[in-house]
């Protein structure tokens, strides 16, 4: 058996017959380990066998499905609170406006930047391929449809999820940790009506508005890139009018509304289910972002399947 002088157990000591020689322990620690009365606190450490690949996948799937079921129940509770009508007395319109300002107005610069770059990138990539076939003008068609139906709502939602969804979870989570939610309940106020509904209302209103901004700058970015492929603004504009329909824009805005609902619902739900302590608040914020982005992409896929 190999020995180590630091007093810690080493690999060889795992054998049943092995004995451990302790060296260089501080006197207090050595005295503690030598005390017979502490023997009864020795309990065998239960080592769970590592789960197999399929078991882990199964557990993760079950966990995610139960989370989605819980989230649907939460959205149902919000809908019930809205239909009950009491929220008209409870919801503060000033709070809703404040949340909408924070979620919307302050997100405009980043949404404009991301939307513009998306338009530029998608048109440039399409243009490189289309040029080989002499079909550069049709890049306007592809770029415009991609921006209006997919990239505008999707990128806006991802920006808002990162910026605001995490904020909702952290804010409500911190309020829970500080017993503010209990304080609200003792005033007879339901946190769903008081905290969640204003955020839901703000989010489903603001995300489509931001999407319109992202769409506009995305199309402008695309038009700008078309210049480098010798397509003038006027040509791009004329081609655009023939390429897109009102439905493309409306579909994008319907998606954006759904994404707004998901961002607020996930953020608020993660906040309300925050555990104890400051670490739990951080975890809720992180999970809110991850869950909402995954759900946004899943819902986007469903829309693509349903509208194809």
């Amino acid at each position, binding site marked *: 058996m190999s020995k180590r002088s630091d007093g810690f157990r080493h690999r060889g000591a795992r054998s049943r017959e092995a004995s451990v020689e302790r060296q260089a322990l501080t006197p207090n620690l050595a005295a503690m380990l030598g*005390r017979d*009365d502490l023997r009864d606190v020795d309990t065998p450490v239960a080592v769970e066998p590592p789960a197999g690949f399929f078991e882990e996948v199964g557990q993760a799937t079950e966990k995610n499905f139960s989370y989605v079921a819980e989230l649907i129940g939460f959205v149902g509770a919000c809908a019930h609170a809205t239909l009950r009508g009491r929220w008209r007395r*409870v919801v503060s319109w000033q709070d809703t406006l404040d949340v909408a300002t924070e979620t919307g107005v302050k997100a405009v610069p980043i949404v404009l930047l991301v939307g513009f770059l998306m338009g530029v990138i998608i048109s440039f990539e399409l243009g490189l391929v289309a040029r080989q076939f002499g079909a550069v003008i049709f890049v306007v068609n592809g770029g415009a449809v991609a921006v209006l139906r997919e990239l505008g709502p999707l990128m806006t939602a991802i920006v808002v999820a990162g910026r605001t969804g995490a904020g909702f979870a952290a804010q409500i989570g*911190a*309020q829970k940790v*500080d*017993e*503010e939610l*209990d*304080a609200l*309940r*003792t*005033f*007879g*106020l339901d946190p769903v009506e008081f905290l969640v509904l204003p955020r839901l209302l703000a989010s489903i209103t603001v995300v489509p508005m931001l999407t319109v901004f992202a769409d506009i700058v995305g199309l402008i970015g695309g038009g700008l890139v078309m210049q480098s492929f010798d397509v003038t603004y006027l040509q791009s504009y004329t081609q655009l009018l023939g390429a897109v329909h009102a439905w493309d824009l409306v579909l994008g805005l319907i998606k954006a509304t759904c994404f707004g609902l998901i961002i607020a619902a996930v953020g608020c739900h993660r906040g309300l289910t925050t555990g104890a302590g400051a670490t739990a608040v951080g975890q809720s914020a992180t999970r809110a972002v991850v869950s909402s982005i995954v759900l946004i992409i899943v819902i986007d896929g469903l829309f693509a399947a349903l509208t194809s």
Partner: protein
Amino acid sequence: MDTRPVIRVCDLRMGFGARILLDAVSFDVHRGEILVILGGSGSGKSSLMKTLIGLHDPLAGDIFIKGTSLVGADADEKAHLQRELGVMYQSGALFGSMNVLENVRFPLDRFTDLPLIQKNRIVRRLLRELEMLAAESLMPGELSGGMLKRAGIARAMALGCDILLLDEPSAGLDPITAANLDRTILSLRRSLDVTFIIVTHELQSIFAIADRAILLDPVSRSIIAQGRPADLRDHSNDARVRQFFNRQPDALAPDVITKL
């Protein structure tokens, strides 16, 4: 004069699922009384308080607030009953986005149509009563522990509640601040006839302010003593009660004592 108890707890059983925390708990609280709920860690004091204010549903039994059942109430009635009770949480639970004045005014903003000037007048009177007037524009993060608790009491009283439940009001306070808070509680009882239910561990505070104490025991999961704190300390036949009030540690086995 109405001699009915302001709060009556009947055969309350509470817990989480199959885990029973307290069973067969019954007691009355009378107008103007200061009742202290005591017990070791894990005895269910805070859970009992949360059940009294309707945040947890009991497994069995009932709670009557001024004669109306809290358990049988629908959502609107429950919300109405909850507004009969003012609650101060251990941390103060002030809303972090509002200053002291706005925090205390919050229930008035929500539940009254009073003009702002009148609401502010009510709030400032309460803050003066609690010696917090100078701190009205401070944010919760700028307040000391004692100030947070005073502001929490002021907010709990803003709707004119005459029953206040305080969760560990002296916890984490220095002796002078804790004594000042005790004086405030007695002063509020004297001037506004407020009834207090206080969850605390602080023996000095208990002897200074409590009219009556109930002691919860985590082993028997019930009330093991009720009465005046000094009587319980000096005359109780129950060794657990005397141990609690005389602040004695658990007895150790003789062989352990020799090794120590």
